[in-house]
């Protein structure tokens, strides 16, 4: 018989060790799968890593993928701090892009690039903020479930952009091909060190979000509201106002992520513009423990997986579905590792002869967390 027992809180280095071990375990599992499918796991992984970090070009691609992921995750993290489950990243990204595109389409071509970019950024923020505020408003004032609401808002946003794509903003110059006109040329984000300056935006936002949460009154209120709304109320906070402000910030930053992706790398609004960033960023925010600096690191790692996956498909003919499975397995075991940070699995001593009661083996399971991960997962 096994039973689950709560564990002491581990020291920081052990936590990091467990997280690292669980990611390794995920890599090991996906290696097995690759071998079963008839590919060489070592060649696959080395191709993946080289494809993601091996050359200047590869690194540029990885960072380009990481930028919108990081900004989105930073935005979502604010909402998650308040236990407002914003699953609407996709919709907020799309609306950020829609608003930014609208600005670009309606400004004269003589507008200076800097002005246009700033205006588009503001519009992107506004679009995302509105899209998050609607479910936020209903959550605060009529206690609707924000998880479902934000999720549904994604589909509305997707339908809107499809309508724009095929009907309203369809570019007549594209000769019957359904396509929205690209944004103005001077609105393209300038490139610094080989990557569009979205990376600076991400870095600055990370610092801002970190300071906001840790050092400002609003951030403090956000943390308290998230931990315990009754306590916040008791301390005289206006819980509704705090939550709505937080949600607007969260959605706005996510919308800005959309604008950065639009103006930085894709230049054209399309229904596929998010590239699932709104969902991937949820995972990133959680894996990072909602910490702004760690979000940057994790975003790059997740982006590396995506970028590397394309490379192994081209180089080794490993289907991209396999890459998706690798991603999924690593994420799964990383999240599964969280379980072992909190719980032990203890084997009960039984008098049956099939299980000789070995004190040492019992101890090793409960003592070393690395061990218990393998035993628990297997």
């Amino acid at each position, binding site marked *: 018989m096994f039973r689950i027992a709560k564990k002491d809180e581990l020291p920081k280095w052990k936590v990091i060790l467990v997280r690292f071990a669980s990611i390794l375990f995920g890599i090991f599992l996906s290696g097995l799968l690759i071998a079963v499918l008839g590919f060489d796991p070592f060649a696959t992984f080395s191709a993946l890593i080289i494809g993601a970090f091996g050359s200047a070009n590869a690194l540029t691609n990885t960072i380009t993928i990481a930028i919108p992921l990081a900004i989105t995750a930073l935005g979502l993290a604010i909402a998650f701090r308040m236990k407002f489950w914003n699953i609407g990243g996709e919709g907020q990204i799309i609306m950020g892009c829609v608003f930014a595109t609208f600005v670009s389409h309606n400004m004269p071509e003589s507008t200076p690039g800097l002005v246009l970019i700033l205006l588009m950024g503001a519009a992107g923020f506004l679009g995302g903020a509105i899209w998050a505020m609607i479910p936020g408003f209903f959550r605060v004032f009529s206690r609707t479930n924000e998880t479902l609401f934000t999720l549904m808002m994604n589909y509305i946003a997707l339908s809107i952009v499809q309508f724009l794509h095929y009907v309203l903003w369809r570019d007549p110059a594209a000769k019957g091909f359904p396509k929205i006109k690209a944004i103005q040329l001077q609105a393209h984000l300038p490139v610094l060190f080989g990557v569009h300056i979205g990376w600076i935006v991400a870095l600055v936002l990370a610092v801002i979000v970190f300071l906001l949460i840790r050092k400002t*009154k609003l951030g*403090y209120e956000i*943390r308290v509201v998230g931990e315990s709304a009754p306590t916040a109320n008791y301390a005289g906070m206006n819980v509704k106002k705090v939550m709505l402000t937080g949600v607007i910030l969260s959605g706005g930053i996510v919308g800005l992520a959309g604008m950065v992706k639009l103006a930085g790398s894709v230049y054209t609004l399309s229904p596929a513009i998010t590239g699932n960033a709104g969902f991937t960023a949820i995972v990133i925010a959680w894996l990072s423990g909602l910490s702004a600096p760690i979000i940057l690191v994790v975003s790059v790692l997740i982006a590396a997986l995506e970028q590397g996956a394309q490379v192994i498909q081209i180089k080794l003919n490993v289907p991209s579905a396999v890459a998706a499975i690798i991603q999924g397995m690593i994420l799964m075991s990383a999240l599964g590792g969280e379980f072992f940070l909190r719980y032990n699995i203890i084997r009960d001593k039984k008098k049956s002869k099939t299980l000789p009661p070995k004190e040492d083996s019992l101890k090793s399971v409960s003592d070393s967390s690395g061990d218990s991960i393998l035993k628990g997962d297997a």
Partner: protein
Amino acid sequence: MISRHPGSHRDAAKCSKSQIWGYKMSDRIPTTPKLAFSMQGISKSFGSVHANDQIDFQVQQGEIHALLGENGSGKSTLMNILSGIYKPDAGTIEVNGEIRIFHAPKDSIACGIGMVYQHFMLAEPLTVAENIAAGSSGFFLNHKKESTAIRAFSEKFGMEIDPEKPVVQLSVSEKQTVAILKVLYHGAKILVLDEPTAVLTPQEIQKLFNVLRKMRENGCSVVFISHKLNEVMELCDRVTVLRKGKSIKTYNIADTDAHDLADKMVGRKVDLSIDRPMPCCEMDGCIRVENLTVKNAEGHMKLSDISFGLCQGEILGVAGLAGSGQKELCEAIAGIIPSEKGKIFFRGTEITGKSPREIIRMGVSMSFIPEDRLGMGLVASMDIADNILLKDYSFQKGPFLKTAEVRIKAEKIVKDLEINTPGIFHPVRKLSGGNIQKVILGREINLNPKLLITAYAVRGLDINSSYTIYNLLNEQKKKNVAILYIGEDLDVLLELCDRIMVLCAGEITGIVDARTVTKEDLGQMMSGTRLKELKGVGEYVSNS
């Protein structure tokens, strides 16, 4: 039976089997009665906390055995092991002489062990009979038959209960009776009661004791978990004292007294009297509540037409059964919940309808400690400094937090109140109950309040911490702070407060002088008898 004669053991070798048996029996019966159950060497740890450490606990058939210990001494863990909720890390449980391993509560129930928890776990809309019969074998329920059986059964133990009544209509005491009846009806021979008197009036406690004594006559064993010494002395036959997860000793009640037990429970000499300085009662009232009526979110009346005043430098105790409106009273004064009708004046200014923050700024400080202790008042995962910031930050100017001054304040509070923590950046959730309470009180006192509302300030605290809290409150009283003290333990209310206001079902049944009122009269008022209906209590009403 053959009794033991002097010198008979010389012939023992020649005795027949039955003679040896008889010889042993006659020797054992008078000295060691049959054990109902025996727990030996029980250990259980949660992480690094050794909740139970090699505990031995034996209960005989037909005795009421007290399990005495402070909060955190391991009583509940031990009983959860007995009821099969937890599995011990080490140790054995014998029931009627057989070693048993409980994998789940049902194994424990099958051995005739019945638990009555503080929360009764009854289906409110169903009748008493349905609640009691739930879980019995058979597919269909024969209402009439069950009712008759239950009625007969309850009379056997001297309990008065109407099996046809829905549980929702019962009082707390009656619900407890149903919970006890339920486990007995399902064949329990060993009854474990977890702090059963905490929710009862003194009169109801006596009724419960009579029922328990009847059970003893019927050969049942009762484990009575408590930290109230006088109840243990009154009711029980034997007592086992636990301290810090270890079983200290088992006594016959006749061989010990309350002071000795208190010393054993705490581990050193304790003084059980509470200091009560005279109120400086300047006559200007600190707070005046007029005709306050409060409904909860569901529209149920929680407070109806409450009027009272509170002077500076006075401790006004609030007594009442759980859920009589204490929570709503605190929250209405603090501005957290709106009032339906009535007015609240604070130093002559009306504060009804003001926001919590405005009221805080006027100097009303509330340390409300709800049942889960961390639900309101503290943020569990934050550290001490951040929690002290909770009331301070809004006074700071600008959008940024000024953490430096809060750190100094936190250090001072930790030092002044002797909070046991590795540092001010330690999450409060990892502190012990007493230290958590000290953090809240320390923060509130540090705001230099004019009115301090404290609810259940010593709930779950050990004796030593409780007295620290009483001293803190008395210091505030000497500083002319008005204190509204919502309490549970009548003995403490009688010793600490200047006046006591009794709430029953959201109404005030009396406001009396704590120096003269008796516990019995308080009990009467708690169950709804109004002060003026009580005989000869005119002298309780103080002039203030």
